């Protein structure tokens, strides 16, 4: 094959191949050199959005420790979810970055942890919501799945396996802090 004669064809076909190779390298290589090391505590309690509308949170983090809020007495006969405080505490979860899995945690165990409440972990990662849509949805338009979360940092974007109860929404996720100890 005469390269000089077919130079335009070779360039035209090689540009997309080069782009794919460059992007593949840019996406894959950082994963070998960077890995998150801090686990984090979170909850995906249902209807949390409505609670925060009334400025109510079940837990808070103070000086690195998880604490329970004192909560008002509820009326069990009140069916209006906008005005009812549930009796059951939201389930806490610990995302382990080494196993890349979440597990349930009791309040007693969670209270023993030391937490860093900064959005960015000590090793430079943050949690962002996903917009992971298929190619066709990208072209014709479609809703993003903001319930999906990603650990983002150092050129790495790693999907986090959260435990999302059925019916939970984007607003139900609450990050408490990075586990320092």
């Amino acid at each position, binding site marked *: 094959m005469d390269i000089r004669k077919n130079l*335009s064809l070779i360039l035209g076909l090689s*540009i*997309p191949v080069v782009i*794919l190779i460059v*992007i593949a390298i840019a996406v894959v290589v950082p994963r070998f050199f960077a890995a998150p090391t801090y686990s984090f505590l979170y909850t995906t309690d249902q209807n949390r959005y409505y609670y925060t509308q009334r400025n109510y949170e079940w837990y808070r983090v103070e000086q690195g420790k998880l604490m329970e809020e004192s909560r008002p007495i509820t009326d069990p006969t009140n069916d209006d979810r906008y005005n009812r405080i549930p009796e059951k505490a939201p389930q806490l979860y610990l995302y382990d970055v080494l196993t890349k899995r979440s597990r349930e945690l009791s309040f007693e165990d969670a209270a023993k942890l030391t937490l860093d409440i900064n959005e960015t972990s000590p090793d430079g990662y943050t949690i962002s919501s996903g*917009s992971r849509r298929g190619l066709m949805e990208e072209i014709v338009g479609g809703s993003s799945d903001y319930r999906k979360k990603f650990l983002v940092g150092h050129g790495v974007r790693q999907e986090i396996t959260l435990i999302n109860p059925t019916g939970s929404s984007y607003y139900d996720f609450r990050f408490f802090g990075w586990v320092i100890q």
Partner: protein
Amino acid sequence: MDTLQLLEEITARAKAGTLSRSDVLAALDRGAQAASGGEEHRSLSVADVLAFLGGLIVVIGIVVLVSTNWDSFGSVLRILTTLGFACGVYVAGVLLQQQGSSRLQLLADVFFCIAMVLLPLGLGVTFHEMGLPWDNSPEQVFLSLLAFAGALGAFFTLKRKLFVVFSVAYGTWLFFALLHFIHPESSVTGRLYVCLFTGIAYMFLASAFAKTTLRPLSGLMNFVGSATFLGCALALGEWEPSTAMPILWQLLFPILIIGMIFVSVRLRSTAILITSAISIVAYIIKMTAEYFSDSIGWPFAIVLAGFLLIGVGFGMMRIKRKYIV
């Protein structure tokens, strides 16, 4: 006999009345047809346009018919009405192509178009009926690969130019499907850069086609490629940018347009000249709206833009007459 002698001979015979204009044109047509490997060159007539429109309406009708009765179809019938129909129409086109008549060749082209348009739909339906999620990234890569291979295979088998158009279209789909598979969370700016380079690749392919029997397709490739390139370059300039790169793109854009006009003259491509002219118009309107509408007011800004556009139009016509045609 060299070209100059041949032309003098033709002039002498035309004066003597032994050679007519139609004889010369017919000889030229036969020569071009032989050079293209036998596929007849015909300029697009009203009948051709109506035939392709009819084919398009057939496809629309099939899609509507199938979609309204979709729930009552079983898996086999769904695959038959989409992929099966595409294959049947393709086979019909192959049989028509083997006939000598130019009208049947046109009909064969229409059938091939229908088959190529329905191919990805048929493959998607087949994936769906097999339980594979057709809109996921890995399945999109596989689907686009099959469509691309089908179009490319048809071109190498039947040697018809329209399969190249579909090969390029499905190849582009495969490229973006692979890109989305590797890096689904890419930013808008990143995608603009990818599209920019895709436009450049299209123009290189157009240049390659111009040297072969695929020359009639180079105009379309140049148009799409240059429009993509210039459109992305304009978009990378953003609106009232505050960071360095978008400002650089805004400053660079006029230079890119001048470069594209130079390329259009070198390649004698009217398509690139047209997209360059449209890009100048878009750039003038954008810059006027962005930076001058508040200072000199909208009415003066519009008048200024109008005069500049008149100048652009005259300039482009002059370039075309002097260097391209």
